[in-house]
């Protein structure tokens, strides 16, 4: 294929040098460190991130203002929120494994939150949404030019909240409240409990809980982020980082100069880009098949193909 990793200017394996961030981070603390640096350096004046129940209790005014009753929100249900400080950033860190509608805050970030330079983190499909919003801003007045840093995260698929609930409570037999962290790695879905217990589920079990909308996605490594990152390809505790756009290149160079990250050449680490490429190709070819299947789904009737 060849295009599975998207266009990038550089790729490294990296880890935050900030011990505090690493304590809260899913892997190498890349997103948190980038945003913390960008906030500090004035590159962004706020970032849209996926926060959670605890964050909402502490910073209710920073969360998306919709009809949600934050008291009723379950553990690990993501809440799009704006963070303006490192403390807020850390309170929101970590992967939630179900989709956070971060783009829903993109316009409001420039309105009641008053941001002129927005940082946003999201999945590959959300990076597509960001770029579509810049080129075709149908309902995104005065938003595109305010996006100062878009960080994409690798994504094989996502889960609806109820899918995660069933995996954790029914399959892993743990209460959502007692979960400290979830993780997908080494071919398994891992649930870490607050008391130290660990449950692993084979990925095969998780497939039926994936969101159907993910099965037409042709992007694994967030090709349209300014910078994209994920754990795959790097050793434990490290993340693989692709620097893609001019903005990404400039922010990454400044963050490196400020000593935010330690890096290793991606060629030198195991499992390296080979695994990223393999998984990207697996996702893309599987989902291309889904798209082909959709074209002949009925009798002389196709399901809609969003790609033109």
């Amino acid at each position, binding site marked *: 294929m060849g295009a599975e990793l998207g266009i990038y200017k550089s790729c490294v394996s990296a880890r935050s040098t900030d011990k505090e961030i690493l304590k809260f981070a899913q892997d190498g603390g890349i997103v948190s460190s980038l945003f913390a640096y960008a906030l500090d350096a004035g590159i962004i004046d706020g970032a849209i991130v996926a926060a959670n129940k605890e964050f909402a209790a502490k910073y209710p005014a920073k969360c998306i203002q919709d009809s949600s009753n934050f008291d009723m929100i379950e553990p690990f249900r993501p809440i799009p929120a704006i963070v303006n400080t490192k403390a807020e950033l850390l309170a929101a860190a970590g992967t939630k494994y179900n*989709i956070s509608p*971060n783009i829903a805050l993109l*316009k409001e970030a420039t309105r009641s939150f008053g941001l002129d330079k927005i940082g946003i983190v999201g999945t590959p499909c959300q990076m597509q949404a960001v770029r579509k919003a810049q080129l075709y801003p*149908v*309902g995104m*007045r005065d938003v595109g030019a305010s996006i100062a840093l878009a960080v994409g995260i690798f994504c094989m698929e996502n889960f609806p*909240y109820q899918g995660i609930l069933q995996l954790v409570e029914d399959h892993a037999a743990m209460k959502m409240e007692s979960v400290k962290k979830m993780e997908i790695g080494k071919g398994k879905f891992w649930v870490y409990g607050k008391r130290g217990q660990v449950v692993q589920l084979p990925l095969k079990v998780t497939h039926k809980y994936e969101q159907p909308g993910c099965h037409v996605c042709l992007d694994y490594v967030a090709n349209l982020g300014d910078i994209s990152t994920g754990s795959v390809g790097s050793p434990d505790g490290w993340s693989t980082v692709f620097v893609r756009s001019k903005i990404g290149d400039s922010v990454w160079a400044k963050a490196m100069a400020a000593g935010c990250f330690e890096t290793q050449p991606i060629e030198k680490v195991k499992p390296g880009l080979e695994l990223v490429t393999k998984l990207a190709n697996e996702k893309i070819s599987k989902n291309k098949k889904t798209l082909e299947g959709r074209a002949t789904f009925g009798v002389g009737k196709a399901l809609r193909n*969003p790609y033109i």
Partner: protein
Amino acid sequence: MADKITVGYTHLSGCTGCTVALADNYAGLLTLLDKYVDLKYMPTLADARHIQKVDVSFVEGSVCINDKLAVEEIKETREKSAVVVALGGCACYGNITRFSRGGQQNQPGHEAYLPIGDLIKVDVFIPGCAPTPQLIRNVAVMAYLLLKGTKEQKDLATAFLKPLMAAAAEGNSACFCDLMTKVINQGLCMGCGSCAAACPVNAITMEYGKPQGERDLCIKCGACYHQCPRSWFSFDVVSNYEAINEAIMAALQ
């Protein structure tokens, strides 16, 4: 002057919000008028108001079919323009005028309003209420490149405008329900939240990863569906976002 494209602006039953959105390009609008566009007629922003022969005409507002003048104007617009662009929710989809049932001052008999595509063939849609200054700007620059650009620029403009032309060919009604029927029902929604951000009346919230629409609030502008990355998405165009953004900004310098 010779290199400019000629543009007209027909104003039917619309609130002038689209005109304001166009004007909200500020200096960008002046550059457009300076370098690329010869504005032949436009109520509000130009002296000449009567429809003339032009390359591209923008139409704001829906057509009141009880108003003879409006019907004549939309037909004349079609006859005299090479390209007709429906600007904004009312021209594309009827938008808020869909809710009209007549009886308003000072023309109580004006009760039936149609999107312009119900009366004439429309080439390009710019949906949204109001349409954004940036999308109007992007379409204007692309329309210029399509008519006056090099082969390469023409190809880019064609690719850029393709989904907006497809929208014009697809139909003349819009609703929050498009997200249900064409995205969620089709198994395509992944819960990014674009629709909720795009909605001008905050009728959409994201509940458990999917849009939930307050259908009584929906004004039928089409912004949510067209902002959705799973309504239509062109890898050729969007993957090239950096170069296209730069080209548009450079054109407006």
